[in-house]
């Protein structure tokens, strides 16, 4: 059945998706693992079953004690105003930022994947996992990473045992139930998977993801009607979940409810869950409903999918990793490990692993973003700038990347660079007020209220808001026009009142 398991952001398991829900684990880590300073950090205060904000623990700057050993923190002090623009770099800079800051940056990012064999990568992954377990003193979050590696390398017995230990240590962690159940399904143990997921539900873990996997397990055990009912329940609360529509449609098709199946499958495709299996099921549903023209249309779409996922290739017959898959395994494992090291303020380990990910996959956006956050935490602005520049190259239409560069440039008093990046952000999304507001704020801060006025007025033309009028008032006050400032405050208040009345 399509979308049968959840896929992690950076991870992949042969034959089925797997889950890398680091934020929750990170939250658990910060709660449970002693830091070098022997104190828990921020996000760990909340219970592990409460929704933890992604990477929340990263946002707390480490204490001096936490951050040791430092990553050359003190040597990477921000340059004085204008210094970056005047500098010239030596050597072979690899990005725009490196061209302007190579002399002070302590990071360089590769552009070509480093060579490595499958065996080397597998060995390296096991080394990292073993070290993580030592460093984290066998904490269950480290066991989770070990389980993840073993599962991807088809050492499933070990992986099952590890995830069971994880569940014993942290029975409120949804991801462990899902991981364990997904692996059990791969092992042909659908009945056990169903039991594990029912345990999760009995503990109050009732996310759509848990129910999705429970539905999958129910399908595997032949309880199709129960799976369909469960999918309907979830869809009542989450009507835009394409995965659940797909699951429902496939279940309805098995139950012979072909009209309903056709409708559900069309909905799934409309919502973006239009994988190969969705079109195959819709082809069959249409055929069984006598809708032959549509059936032929969906058959052709089904057949147009890459045939590699259809006919078994000579490689995937063996369930063995290709080199590319071994890289993905390493990336997923290193990502998890890096997040855990970050959560426990072991910054050097985190930096090392994130850089290794980028050596294996220079275009890995998530690793770039995480590395930038690490440097932000460590207050290494030049390094952060280098990484954020790369991030913007990898994700060039995301205005937030340019605003982050601008923010860091501004703190380094590189006003020209900051302004240029905000302008670029605005040009990427001219109907979004975020860029205009950011520019107005920035111009105010650097003492250019006239410029700020233009941007804030432009933002208000696009979308009037109380916040916008308050910013306008601030600009008028800076310009010494109290009357205009008063007028803007009144407009902000009126808008707030009308919003609350509505």
């Amino acid at each position: 059945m399509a979308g049968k398991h959840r896929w992690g952001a950076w991870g992949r398991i042969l034959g089925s998706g797997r889950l890398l829900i680091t934020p929750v684990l990170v939250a658990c880590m910060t709660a449970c693992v002693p830091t070098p300073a022997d104190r828990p950090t921020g996000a760990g205060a909340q219970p592990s079953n409460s929704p933890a904000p992604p990477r929340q623990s990263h946002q707390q700057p480490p204490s001096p004690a936490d951050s040791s050993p430092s990553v050359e923190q003190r040597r990477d002090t921000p340059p004085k105003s204008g210094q970056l623009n005047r500098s010239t770099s030596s050597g072979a800079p690899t990005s725009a930022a490196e061209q302007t800051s190579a002399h002070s940056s302590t990071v360089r990012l590769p552009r070509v994947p480093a060579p490595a064999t499958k065996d080397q990568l597998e060995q390296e992954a096991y080394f990292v996992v073993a070290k993580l377990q030592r460093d984290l003193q066998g904490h269950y979050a480290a066991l989770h990473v070990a389980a993840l590696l073993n599962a991807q390398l088809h050492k499933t017995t070990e992986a099952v045992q590890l995830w069971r230990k994880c569940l014993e240590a942290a029975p409120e962690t949804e991801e462990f139930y899902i991981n364990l159940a997904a692996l059990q399904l791969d092992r042909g143990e659908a009945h056990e998977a169903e039991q594990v997921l029912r345990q999760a539900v009995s503990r109050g873990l009732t996310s759509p993801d848990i129910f999705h996997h429970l539905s999958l397990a129910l399908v595997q055990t032949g309880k199709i009607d129960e799976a369909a009912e469960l999918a309907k329940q979830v869809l009542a609360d989450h009507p835009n979940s394409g995965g659940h529509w797909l699951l429902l449609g496939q279940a309805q098709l098995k139950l012979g409810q072909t009209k309903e199946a056709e409708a559900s499958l069309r909905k799934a495709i409309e919502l973006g869950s239009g994988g190969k299996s969705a079109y195959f099921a819709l082809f069959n549903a249409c055929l069984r409903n006598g809708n032959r023209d549509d059936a032929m249309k969906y058959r052709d779409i089904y057949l147009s999918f890459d045939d590699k996922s259809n006919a078994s290739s000579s490689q995937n017959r063996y369930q063995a990793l290709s080199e590319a898959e071994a890289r993905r395994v390493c990336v997923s494992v290193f990502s998890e490990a890096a997040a855990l090291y970050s959560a426990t303020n072991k910054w050097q380990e985190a930096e090392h692993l994130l850089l290794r990910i980028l050596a294996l996959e220079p275009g890995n956006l998530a690793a770039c973003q995480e590395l930038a956050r690490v440097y932000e935490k460590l207050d290494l602005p030049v390094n952060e700038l280098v990484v954020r520049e790369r991030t913007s190259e990898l994700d060039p239409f995301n205005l937030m990347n340019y605003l982050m560069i601008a923010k860091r440039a501004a703190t380094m008093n590189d006003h020209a660079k900051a302004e240029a990046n905000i302008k670029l952000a605005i040009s990427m999304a001219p109907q979004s007020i975020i860029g205009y507001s950011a520019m107005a704020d920035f111009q105010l801060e650097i003492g250019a209220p006239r410029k700020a006025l233009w941007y804030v007025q432009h933002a208000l033309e696009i979308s009037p808001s109380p916040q916008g009028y308050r910013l306008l008032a601030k600009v008028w006050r800076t310009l010494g026009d109290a009357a205009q400032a008063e007028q803007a405050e009144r407009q902000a208040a009126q808008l707030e009142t009308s919003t609350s009345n509505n």
Partner: protein
Amino acid sequence: MSNHALLAVFLGFLATAPRVHATDPTERLSKWAEIQPSSGIDFVHTDGGNGNYFIVESMTVGLATFDYDDDGLVDLYLLNGSPLPGTPVPYAPPTNRLYKNLGGNRFADVTAEAGVGDTGYSLGVVAADYDNDGDTDLYVSNFGANRFFLNNGDGTFTDGTAWTGTDAGDRFGAGVVFADFDGDGNLDLFAGNYVKFRCEQNIVRIIKGYRFHPGPADYPADTDLLLINDGEGHFRDATEESGIGAIAAATMGAIATDVDNDADLDLVVAVDSDANLLWINDGGVFHEEGLLSGLAFDGSGRANGNMGIDAGDVDGDGWIDLITTTFQDEMPVLYRNLGNGLFEDATKLSRLDSWLHPHVSWGCVLSDFDLDGDLDLFIACGHFMDNIQHIDDRTSVKVANLLMENRGGRFHTVIPDEDGNGLAEIRSSRGVACEDLDGDGDPDLVINNHNDELSLLRNDQTTAHAWLRIRLVGTMSNRGGVGARVAVEHAQHRQWAEVYAGRGYQSHYGGEGLTFGLGRAPQSPLQIDVRWPNGTSESWRIDGANREVVLIEGRGIHGR
């Protein structure tokens, strides 16, 4: 016990252990006795390998059960490999073996005197009375030239390969099927082929330092053959004119069945790692409708590594359903015939045990093992890669087989009885045949195990269920009634079955009679309706169960 053996046992245990956690386990149907040690059968299969990992080693092996001497007891013909390049040829090379059923669960090796000791590398087999002379002939599909053994009617055979024109070239054979595709009363021959391979083209996969057999994607797929029987004992190659030659595919099992109830035999071909083929018969010309019918792929649209195939009316609706066995990480697929030219993947709805998912499955048998009036399912399992455990711990070479009991269209996994139970054996099984070898009415099992001894499982259920065996003799149709459809009705319960020649994993069984389980002994006459292969129909009402009846086309019933 050697370390190697200990490891094998351990891995086997791992693979088998989850069965006790099956969703719907049952202890019914759990009594099976392994009688091979006392049967007189000393056959040990060899794949002829020597560590070169030729792909042909991974394709073994079928078997046939048929009454070669017409004494009323079903005999066994067991296929064997032969030494591949690099393997020393022993003084007495391995051959296929014919075992005569002596009764009382005893068998005698009659290979030499019967003249069927083919020393070729055998993979598939089918048996039928192709010349309508009253005895059953034998066709063997090889890696190399195929062999056609013509039954002389006196317990011996003559190699008639050249005379009949059926050597099929020097190819990589697979499943073979006899059926009267053109409706002239003579059995035609479908000979499947796998891929185009020569030993000098060998590819060995090395993963983590371990050697593995190549797969079908490593070689070009081959086309199958359709040979038309001219009624004079010779065959004519009709591969191209029939349309069968239009598609090259890595064929494994095949079966001729009437999927659309139009009274001619269609052909379903199980294909390794690609779409299954459904050849719809339109007067001897075929067109392929696998995708449109729903038989090509599983319910997710995935092309499986299909191995064996069997057919039967699993849900009792009068339409023939199909089961295919599959490669690792794929469930065997039960294709339910919806009756409108369409099939649906009913694997999960029918609750086939998900335990099968990580394993490679081969032989498959739909048969009423407990004689309760519906078809149960036996599936043979075992990986062919002897290093598989080094790259995937979910399966192994030796894996338990699986028996599932049908209750109202849903299957319940049979948990083996603890007392020396044959069902609990852990081997690397391939072809399976199902026959009443001991004449007690219920079907027994014969399993050809890769590089191992035969398994001979006697069905020891004590159900007290009644049965009826129907043997067909064609007069205008082919003499064995291959392709006929029979319905038996009692107590408002109607069952259907067809006569096949060639089924399962490149095997043959069931041609000596159709067994119908009747549950409790019927109090009223049984209604029997036969549609002969030529399309004519006859009906009878008979009294009494627990017996075999012989129905002769146009002439009536003969007890036996």
